């Protein structure tokens, strides 16, 4: 497959769109969650069951075809079944996930024992009931297609749209799913300035967290006089609880590169670099495979599609440091030096990598570009809200029932994401907070659940959009401890270049460690607030400037927990060791014995009354009894108990 001219590619696209009968496709989720759950072994078994050929070589892909009989009503027709692996399909909590096309059916928690059943159901042309994905009321959906599964029905998948129905390895597959329409339109009918204008008009804002208008950045780079210009992909994904960018690079690498190619054409660049964190070897492999295929197909390299446009892409692996995600640090890191931010008196769009004008955008930002160019800025603006157009991908994780990768229009509320899509808090525990924005973001309480998710509303609420981590926390999460967690992270990741960030954060860390170790002193909370202000005001880069957010937002919304840690040395969440005791409320206890069965220290006794009671001297305060009691009869208390 090689395209030397625009018409070559257009003809090819025409040809494949004419092909009507695609047969059936069995897609096995190859996202990180499902792979960890054993999905690769399932894929191998599917292939064995369908034929005998087995192929585990990543680069030749798991594609495979055989003929089987399918029975719609009485007729027997011969169809092709193909099977392959995709990127993350979204419902990670219930993996391994299997998806059957063109019927659009989803199966969850699939094991090798289900393979025969799934293949059989395809032959019969009916859903396979046993592992149908959960519909309403948590019961397996009658017909497990996206519209009947709340987790999927309430999303709007544009960026993630292809990821459940396409091999991340095959270029043909990407093109068959609409890929490269954007580049065709750009090269065929748009001048580079027009593309910048179209992106400006779309209102696209950077998905890496800052929300800077992408078109404005491109235009300013385009207008900087220079022989050489660079376009860069920020795939550093420093947020320690998120995997959106990873999922995209692994699951749909071509769309990121297509976006990058369009951007390069728009700003007049011939060199692109994808900066990927070292911990993502599969993303590197998939991107490298995509680049190789694109070069062979003539979609990267010199004189692309006969238009005279040259563009080369390389991958650069980062060494795994949070601050390297910051734009200037990322560029020094590509230059082979320690990634330390520099003062931005000169913008990177004027003088960036190797002193040349440079555009750096986040993985997801780039992946938006082909859609905007294909469908137009007006279409894009019709999704989301006035100043926040388009969708946003989130890694919805933590104590939420349906953990996974979700995509929603901007302006969707936190409540809709966590409850309608995520199914609420896991194990029906009370909701305490949701964290967005990673280490630069904050925690919002239940009273803020109706906040629309967009750059401006989240900042106003005291958190941040960030790159898309969304961590749900229940009553067993201590907010002071979470602040300590993020400050520990930031102390480790501060590059040390400026004093307020380096020393100020260490001071905050000491106070937070004391607070969570039962050594809090009166005035600690106030001292944290003062330090926070100083660090935010005087740090050089955004790491320091936003480092206090996790502390400030938890003080703002959960002050009572700070005061309890400070004055009473009490942790109501039962997290900070030595700062609480656990007690069964005899009046509420229904004598079910569940706590006793789950106590690792075997220290819960049955009383003569039939009720249960904790012998304190044996209790290691693990909280297991608290979590399992179905009647909320176990309390976390701050009192010395008799036999202590």
């Amino acid at each position, binding site marked *: 497959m090689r395209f030397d001219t625009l018409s070559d590619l257009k003809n090819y696209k025409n040809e494949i769109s004419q092909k009507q009968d695609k047969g059936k496709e069995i897609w096995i989720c190859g996202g990180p969650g499902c792979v*960890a*759950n054993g999905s690769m072994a399932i894929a191998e078994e599917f292939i064995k069951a369908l034929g005998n050929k087995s192929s585990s070589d990543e680069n030749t892909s798991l594609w495979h075809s055989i003929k089987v009989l399918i029975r719609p009503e009485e007729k027997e027709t011969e169809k092709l079944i193909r099977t392959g692996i995709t990127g993350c399909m979204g419902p990670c909590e219930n993996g391994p996930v299997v998806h059957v096309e063109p019927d659009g059916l989803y199966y969850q928690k699939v094991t090798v024992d289900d393979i025969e059943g799934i293949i059989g159901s395809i032959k019969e042309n009916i859903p396979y009931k046993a592992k149908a994905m959960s519909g309403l009321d948590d019961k397996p959906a009658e017909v497990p297609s996206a519209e009947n599964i709340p987790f999927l029905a309430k999303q709007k998948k544009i960026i993630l749209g292809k990821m459940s129905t396409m091999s991340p390895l095959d270029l043909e597959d990407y093109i068959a799913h609409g890929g490269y329409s954007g580049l065709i339109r750009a090269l065929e009918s748009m001048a580079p300035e027009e593309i910048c204008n179209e992106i400006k008009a779309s209102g696209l804002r950077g998905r890496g967290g800052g929300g800077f208008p992408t078109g404005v950045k491109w235009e300013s780079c385009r207008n900087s006089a220079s022989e050489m210009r660079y376009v860069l992909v920020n795939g550093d994904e420093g*947020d320690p609880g998120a995997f959106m960018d990873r999922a995209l690079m692994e699951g749909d690498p071509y769309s990121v590169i297509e976006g990058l190619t369009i951007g390069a054409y728009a700003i007049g660049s011939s060199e692109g670099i994808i900066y990927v964190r070292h911990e993502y070897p599969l993303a590197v492999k998939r991107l490298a495979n995509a680049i190789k295929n694109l070069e062979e197909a003539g979609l990267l390299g010199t004189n692309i599609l006969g238009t005279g446009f040259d563009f080369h892409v390389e991958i650069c692996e980062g060494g795994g440091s949070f601050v390297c995600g910051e734009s200037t640090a990322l560029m020094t890191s590509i230059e082979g030096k320690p990634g330390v931010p520099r003062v931005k008196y000169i913008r990177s769009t004027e003088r960036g990598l190797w002193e040349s004008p440079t555009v750096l955008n986040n993985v997801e930002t780039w992946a938006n570009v082909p859609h905007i160019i294909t469908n137009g800025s007006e279409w894009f603006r019709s999704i989301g809200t006035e100043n926040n157009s388009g969708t946003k991908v989130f890694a919805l994780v933590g104590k939420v029932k349906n953990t996974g990768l979700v995509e929603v229009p901007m302006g969707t509320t936190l409540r809709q994401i966590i409850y309608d899509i995520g199914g609420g808090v896991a194990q029906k525990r009370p909701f305490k907070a949701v964290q967005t924005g990673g280490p630069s973001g904050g925690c919002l309480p239940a009273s803020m659940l109706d906040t629309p998710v967009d750059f401006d509303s989240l900042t106003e609420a005291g958190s941040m959009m960030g790159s898309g981590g969304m961590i749900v*926390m229940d009553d067993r999460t201590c907010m002071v401890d979470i602040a300590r967690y993020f400050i520990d992270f930031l102390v480790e990741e501060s590059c040390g270049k400026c004093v307020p960030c380096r020393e100020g954060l260490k001071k905050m860390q000491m106070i937070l460690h004391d607070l969570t170790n039962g050594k809090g002193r009166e005035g600690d909370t106030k001292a944290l607030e003062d330090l926070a202000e100083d660090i935010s005001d005087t740090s050089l880069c955004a790491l320091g400037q936003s480092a206090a957010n996790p502390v400030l937002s938890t003080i703002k919304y959960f002050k009572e927990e700070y005061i309890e840690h400070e004055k009473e040395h009490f942790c109501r969440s039962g997290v900070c060791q030595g700062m609480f005791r656990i007690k069964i409320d005899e009046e509420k206890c229904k004598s079910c014995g569940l706590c006793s069965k789950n106590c690792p220290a075997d220290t819960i006794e049955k009383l003569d009354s039939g009720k249960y009671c904790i012998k304190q001297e044996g209790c290691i305060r693990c909280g297991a009894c608290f979590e399992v009691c179905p009647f909320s009869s176990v309390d976390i208390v701050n009192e010395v108990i008799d036999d202590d």
Partner: protein
Amino acid sequence: MNAEHSELLKEFTAEEVATLDEIIARHKGTPGGLIPVLEEAQVALGYLPASVQKRVAKGLNLPVSRVYGVVTFYSFFTMTPRGRHTIRVCLGTACYVRGGKALAEAIKKEVGISEGETTEDRRFTFESVRCLGACGLGPVVVINDDVHGRMKPSKLTEVLDLYS
């Protein structure tokens, strides 16, 4: 080929040293080549002690201090040898709120070393990582390439016994 070379040979075989030289030669002259060289060298040799850093510095015509600066800045690089098995506990935010902290404490107790250390018998190296993308399985522990999801401190001994 002298004191420095024999220092290298104390820790690595002649083949390993040859591989190192090959890696250096391949990237020589490329701007920004230092990090790729160190990454490949670490994969090939397992760790980057002073002797290796000196060799790299000399080969790429860089001051040793520059190489040392890069090795110590990026968490991926390590200067000490590793154990036969690597235990990595996920302390990403999602795993942390699902009990990752208690798990990390339990591992420390079980193997008797702190984060970043290797046991004396070189059986285990213990590290923490941030988000493996498997948050739905949290808390997660990865041993070598095996992912153990929904881990509990009480299941730990049983799992570690699989790795001798």
